[in-house]
């Protein structure tokens, strides 16, 4: 399959699509005019696909500088009557939360869909917050798909719903939707106006206190309408068991799939209420369901949102059904569910003893950990090496390393241990001031280029104004590497794939008022070490931009041009001092029983190890 197939294949074609690709197909079918994002896993591929297709699909798409701006752009576009979508990972919605809360009051004209990609089990996130709370918190309708196809369908449903209610709508996915592949049958593309018109209406769009005062009751009215739509929405459907049963299961998201599979597999008899429209909940539908079952089992991942409402309803309506979920500790409240977890609990509740053959005892092996590491050739590794050396040479042993969100957080691994404190995007810069004011320790903060543009500028400005003192190292590899190499404001192309002005990082830093700034090539270890030592002497905020293209991007170029020279090791000269392994730790270098070797298929050919080796055993291949 080619990415273009998502746009070009005829209606009725079947494609094997990632959930994120299916979402893009949803944008296309729904006639979206504006789409915005800041990349973040598990939502990243949505942007990557749009980056290829937006122009051809007549969608304006941008990688915004952060989620707040992405949200604002989409909200304003939708206020003119066109359809707009903004998408981000769950913690990205925290960044946009200020705008989100007001957007519920202000409402919308055209369809406005907010996609929150949650990450239960934290495959690539700092937490597993359940963003369904945002729907309740702000007062916005919430949709939860169970498959790539339903994700596509809900894009269209959500945009239509948003127009009907004049309210933004949240579509909440999870990693097991974003990163699931399934068959999607392409449907027709709606023809929607691509340009809107902004009809001024301050009473709707400007929540100054006197107007906001009237907006809150209006929001509650809209939510009441949303609730009645939810009662009859096809996204909430009752699936009757073949025989009458005392068991009713309420399930949402991918957890529904686990329930359905478990019932089919074990021949368990239960009625199922599949919820796709989960806020506001269809309370009448639920009341009828609960009151006709002796046992109501609620299966939802992470937080017990649905369960809490069902329990409240049962109490209010004096329903006698036993509600089973997380509050009674039947289901776990942490991590994603698996078919194993759901199946075991359902069998235990409905037909204990059905699984009589206990699981095979798997032989246990002591296996080496294989955490993600900085790639071979990664310039961050070279920077960390120089930092470590500079600190050694200056005799500083207890420097604090506030770090940030990006590949370089992997500097936490041995031997660098270069991440001591991380909160969120931009926190390396903000927290440095706190460490400076509270300790006498030296502080070296690390932030990547994309993260710097996203959330590093404001705290840096704060640091200069408030006379904090620390060294900020900006690891500039010209891209948003961690999420798959998306452009950012420092890049020379934009989301549409067009040429774009590059915002000079050093000019921004100088413009903020930083008076000590130097730029180094991290591959030049000696120069980098010297500059870092010098920077540590500066009585104020010092900034070192450690600049070198991401080695993965460079590798692509090398592959294209065929000019790929690698490093080999002369084992006759090698003294097995292991500096290359213990201090530098390139994944291409490994130790056998009696030698140090370089895995040529993994060697990036950066050549940094040549400068590290004290015996001259590392040499370029001929």
């Amino acid at each position, binding site marked *: 399959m080619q990415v273009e197939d998502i746009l070009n294949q005829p209606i009725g074609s079947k494609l094997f699509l990632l959930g994120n690709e299916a979402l893009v197909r949803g944008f296309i079918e729904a006639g979206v005019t504006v789409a915005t994002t800041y990349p973040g896993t598990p939502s990243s591929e949505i942007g990557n696909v749009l980056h290829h297709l937006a122009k051809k699909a007549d969608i304006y798409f941008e990688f915004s500088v952060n989620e707040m701006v992405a949200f604002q752009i989409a909200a304003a576009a939708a206020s003119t009557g066109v359809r707009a979508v903004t998408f981000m990972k769950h913690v990205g919605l925290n960044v946009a939360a200020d705008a989100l809360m007001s957007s519920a009051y202000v409402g919308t004209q055209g369809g406005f869909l907010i996609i929150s990609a949650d990450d239960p089990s934290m*495959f690539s996130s700092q937490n597993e917050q359940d963003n369904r709370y945002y729907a309740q918190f702000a007062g916005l309708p919430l949709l939860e798909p169970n498959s790539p196809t339903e994700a596509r369908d809900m894009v269209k449903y959500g945009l239509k719903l948003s127009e009907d209610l004049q309210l933004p709508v949240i579509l909440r996915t999870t990693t097991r939707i974003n990163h699931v592949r399934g068959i999607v049958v392409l449907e027709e593309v709606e023809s929607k106006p691509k340009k809107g018109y902004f009809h001024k209406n301050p009473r709707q769009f400007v929540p100054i206190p006197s107007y906001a005062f009237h907006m809150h009751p209006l929001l509650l009215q809209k939510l009441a309408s949303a609730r009645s739509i939810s009662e009859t929405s096809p996204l909430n459907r009752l699936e009757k068991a073949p025989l009458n049963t005392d068991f009713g299961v309420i399930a949402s998201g991918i957890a529904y799939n686990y329930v359905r599979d478990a019932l089919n597999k074990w021949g368990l008899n239960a009625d199922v209420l599949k919820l796709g429209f989960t806020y506001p909940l269809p309370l009448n539908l639920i009341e009828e369901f609960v009151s006709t079952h002796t046992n109501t089992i609620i299966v939802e991942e992470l937080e017990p949102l649905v369960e809490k409402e069902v329990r409240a309803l049962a109490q209010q309506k004096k329903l006698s059904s036993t509600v089973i979920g997380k509050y009674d500790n039947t289901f776990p409240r942490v991590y994603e569910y698996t078919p194993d977890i759901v199946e075991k609990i359902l069998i235990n509740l409905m037909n204990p003893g059905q699984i009589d053959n206990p699981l095979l005892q798997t032989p246990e092996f002591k296996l080496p*950990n294989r955490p*993600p590491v900085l790639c071979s050739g990664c310039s961050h590794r070279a920077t960390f090496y120089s930092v470590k050396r500079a600190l050694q040479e200056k005799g500083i042993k207890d420097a604090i390393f506030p770090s940030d969100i990006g590949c370089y957080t992997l500097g936490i691994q041995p031997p660098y241990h270069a991440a001591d404190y991380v909160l969120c995007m931009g926190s390396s810069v903000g927290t440095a001031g706190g460490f400076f004011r509270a300790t006498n320790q030296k502080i070296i903060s690390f932030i990547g280029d994309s993260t710097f543009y996203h959330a590093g500028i404001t705290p840096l400005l704060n640091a200069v104004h408030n006379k904090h003192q620390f060294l900020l190292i900006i690891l500039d590899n010209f891209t948003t590497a961690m999420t798959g190499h998306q452009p950012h404001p420092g890049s020379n192309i934009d989301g549409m794939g067009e040429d774009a002005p590059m915002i000079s990082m050093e000019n921004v830093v100088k413009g903020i008022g930083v008076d000590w700034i130097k730029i180094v090539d991290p591959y030049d270890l000696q120069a980098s070490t010297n500059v870092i030592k010098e920077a540590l002497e500066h009585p104020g905020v010092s900034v070192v931009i450690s600049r070198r293209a991401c080695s993965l991007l460079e590798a692509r170029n090398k592959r294209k041009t065929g000019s790929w020279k690698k490093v080999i090791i002369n084992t006759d000269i090698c003294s097995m001092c292991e500096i290359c392994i213990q201090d530098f730790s390139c994944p291409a270098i490994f130790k056998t029983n009696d030698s140090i070797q370089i895995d040529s298929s993994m060697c990036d050919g950066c050549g940094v190890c040549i400068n590290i080796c004290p015996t001259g055993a590392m040499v370029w291949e001929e």
Partner: protein
Amino acid sequence: MNKNYLAILIAGVGGQGILKAGSLLGEAALLENEKIISTEVHGMAQRGGSVVNEIKIGDVLSPLINKGEADVILSFEPAEALRVLDKASPETYLIVNTNPIVPLTVSLGLSTYPDLNLAWTRVRDIYPRLWLVDARKIALEAGNSITENVVLLGVLCSVPIFPLSIESMLKAIENGFPPKFRELNLKAFNLGLEKGKGRILNQ
């Protein structure tokens, strides 16, 4: 217990072409109008971490495979096969590339790589359908070591319970690579398939 699908788990290390192998299976299934669903790991895991791709072909909604219920485990790396053994049963076909990728934690002395000869003896005791494959050697025979993933895909297709036709697989590979890599990958697939059928996988 009702089960109307085949569960395939592909394991390995980020960068080995695991996702590509999965998407080729998907394309082949599409050609045959078979239902297929899969789930994969992205993001952090790409940087040399452990990666799994779970695939089900047939009538089912959940892509994740239960413990003990993988019909086939295809591991691109030996230690990664041992890591996912809990998904295997004695009936599982366990196809394992014998070429280790030694993680940094081992070189740093923070962990040890298992003794594979000992491991295979223990594994074969419980899982007799263990196929050890020197995929690198076969890939080099095909012309380039980067085709290890397609070689292993070929071996996978030689498993008696594999539900898709070889024709669809060949077509998926043809469509799945740019013209200049097409022949190379078809050759790698066919070699893997042949050696799988003849069980001449580790010589």
